[in-house]
């Protein structure tokens, strides 16, 4: 019990540390990228030299990265996530407004992608029909080749929810990998033995094949969350969905350090959690 608790503490600390490192590394990438500290307003001909100088000074405040990050972490302890220079609003407000939108998009998209991907993979495994496999593979291949903008446009033209575009982007990857996992499990000796015993296909699938690749499917699930989060950026930008993907793009184009650090940490935290969740659950069950 004490052992399990120590393990849990260690894992949680590890997750926290990864998230913190993620925030700092994100800040570093932004800080040293060209265009940091510039402002589109500098090209506004109406602005006087004094104003432009003031804008520059304002943007130069966060030039010392270590200092910025320390101040930021200290403020975070008090629930203050900082202020977005580009959007002129507190980061906490922005995140709480936009996170639900993205979670819905990612949820709907992943639901769609997994239903279709795992569904087709299951069909391939159960049917043992190479033509279904070929057709599904071709479908996956076609969808893999379609640019996000075209997908989004088609969904929009068809009056369908553009969130599904996200699902279509993630689907081919889920199909391809889960198909391989399932087929591999099907050729296991004990599955063949079960079939020889005369168990029904559904029984074999649910009782033997699926459990054999459960761990890997969970890993695929975790990776698919990362894939969906990164696909959410173009989908939200193109479709005008007010989520954190769109926010991330705006922040990136404005080199909004504070907002980007928060977004990187949110995404790192989500990634770390979904990737560690299976192990945590397993250990939790054992304890």
């Amino acid at each position, binding site marked *: 019990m004490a052992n399990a608790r120590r393990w849990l503490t260690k894992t949680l600390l590890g997750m926290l540390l990864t998230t913190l490192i993620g925030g700092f590394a994100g800040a570093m990438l932004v800080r040293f990228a*060209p*265009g*940091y500290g*510039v*402002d*589109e*307003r*500098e*090209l*506004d*001909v*109406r*602005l*006087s*030299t*004094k*104003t*432009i100088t*003031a*804008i520059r000074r304002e943007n130069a405040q966060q030039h010392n990265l270590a200092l910025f990050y320390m101040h930021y972490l200290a403020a975070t302890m008090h629930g203050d996530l900082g202020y977005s220079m580009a*959007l*002129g*609003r507190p980061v906490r407000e*922005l995140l709480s*407004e*936009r996170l639900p939108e993205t979670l819905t998009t990612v949820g709907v998209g992943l*639901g*769609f992608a997994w*239903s*279709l991907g795992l*569904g*087709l993979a*299951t*069909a391939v495994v*159960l*049917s043992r*029909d190479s033509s279904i496999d070929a057709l599904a593979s071709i479908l996956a291949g076609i969808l893999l080749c379609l640019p996000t*903008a075209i997908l*989004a*446009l088609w969904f*929009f*033209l068809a*009056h*369908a*929810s553009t969130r*599904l575009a996200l*699902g279509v982007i993630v689907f081919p990857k889920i199909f391809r990998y889960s198909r391989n996992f399932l087929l591999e499990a099907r050729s296991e000796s004990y599955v063949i033995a079960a079939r020889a015993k005369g168990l029904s296909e559904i029984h074999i699938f649910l009782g033997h094949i699926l459990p054999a690749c459960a761990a890997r499917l969970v890993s695929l699930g975790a990776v698919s969350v990362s894939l969906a989060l990164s696909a959410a950026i173009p989908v939200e*930008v*193109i*479709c*005008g969905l*007010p989520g954190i993907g*769109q*926010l991330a793009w705006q922040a990136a*184009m*404005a*080199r909004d350090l504070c907002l980007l650090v928060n977004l990187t940490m949110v995404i790192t935290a989500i990634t770390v959690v979904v990737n560690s969740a299976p192990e945590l659950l397993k250990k939790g069950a054992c304890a």
Partner: protein
Amino acid sequence: MKTTASFLLLWISTLLTGASLSAQSANELRFSIHSFPKTFDPVLVDDDASETIRYLTGGVLIRINRESQRLEPELATGWKLSRDGRTITFTLRDGLRFSDGTGFGVADVAYTMNHLMDADLHSPTGDAFRVGEGKIAVKVLTANQVAITFPAAVVGLERLFDQVAIMSQSSPRKEMAVLGPYMVDEAKPGAVIVLKRNPNYWKVDSAGHHLPYISAIRLDVQPNRDLELIRFLRGEIHFINSLDAEYFEKVKAENPAAARNAGTSLDSEQMWFNQVPTAPLPAYKKIWFGSKSFRRAVSEAINRNDLARVVFRGHAQPAIGPFSPANQFWFNTALRPHPYDPTSARARLAAEGFYWRDGALYDSSGNRVEFSVVTNAGNRYREQMATLIQQDLSDVGIKLNVVTLDFPSLIERITRSFNYEACLLGLVNVDLDPNSEMNVWLSSAENHQWNPRQTSPATDWEADIDRLMRAQASSLDDRRRKQLFDQVQAIVWDQEPFLYLVNKDALAAIRPELHNVQPVVFRPQVYWNIEWLTLNAVVATRQ
């Protein structure tokens, strides 16, 4: 097998959530904005979306009629400019109230002006008023008269008030209490803003009906121009302002009456060479870029007609100078666009000692003439213009490399590191008066793009421009100012620090349900007369 397939079908069909139908209120105008406004504070406006909100909700003392380009009284029934050009006295309309019911009076004008000129706010609108050192003085003369005195004469002073939305001094609703035709009813950040009619708006039509006619405006944030066009064609939005040429053609093909071209706009697309002495460029390139003959040769090698015809589908005109002919008063009518003349370009280059070997151009020291042009990525028209120019220049032996950059990287290069050779960008002209371009033409200015922040003018012609611009800024006689600015335009035409390429047409798409629309070339092109627009039909839309 069969069951698997039917299961799959069921899955897919349940997942494809159907589109829901919603009816739109009969008298609601809909259009798209491309980003969510950064601010509702009229003083701090500096992006397009905020500008839209300010135009629709803000009440101003004087309005520039976008069609006649003349000044019209709004909240002020009259105004008077003192002889020295430093003081303007307004007589206010009586009995007006803000949208929240708070009364409007001289104190509000005083409050707005002081807020606007607050040096710590760095208001772009306020900056236009800033001349000389010192503070402004606002003096309340009577219950409805107020005088504003500036530290020095401000040329074109009255016109600047078109941008000053009056704020309430005492309203608890701060900037949300407005005097314009509409007020913000609902704002969902990043998604939508709904405006509704300001119940206290003062204007009535000749029949005594309260304006505006349209009771609400729904502004959807839609950054994607394609989706905006689809929504327009479906009838979900009523108009598109500043439409791209390609989309204009599409609208025209579907419904010729909906495609409206208001004529050549004030906006220009231009290219310039980096002439900053400290730029990290090889010395020989600095010599090319500093040479008038080189700039003129490049300019003559560019086929501007092709740019207008191919890239903008004919909906653009070769540009001449800082102001397009649309600016009727200030444009120098003696000037013509630089002709497309590769022969003359070659002659100019040869005279400067350039020579050709195997079709490639070399300078007198034997350096191959090759340079790059940077432009902002994501703007298809600029990328296409750059590619056409690339071809034009290769015909005279110059190798041009096109580099697209994201905006922050581009700005850093053209304002800080000066690590670029040539740049292709557009300039949005919001003001008709040349005084608004002081920050471009003065050699000491920040936006003197080809060589900004000079301590003293690097060339004689820049010294001349400095002198002429200062002279026009200190004169109150418009005809005299026009003479001076004509000279500036002539110098710029001759020296070509900016290679003006094209002036785009102001294109719009307008649905037939929307009436009384008179699109103009000045912002906000379609809805400048918003209070007079009417809608006639209930449009059912799918969301």
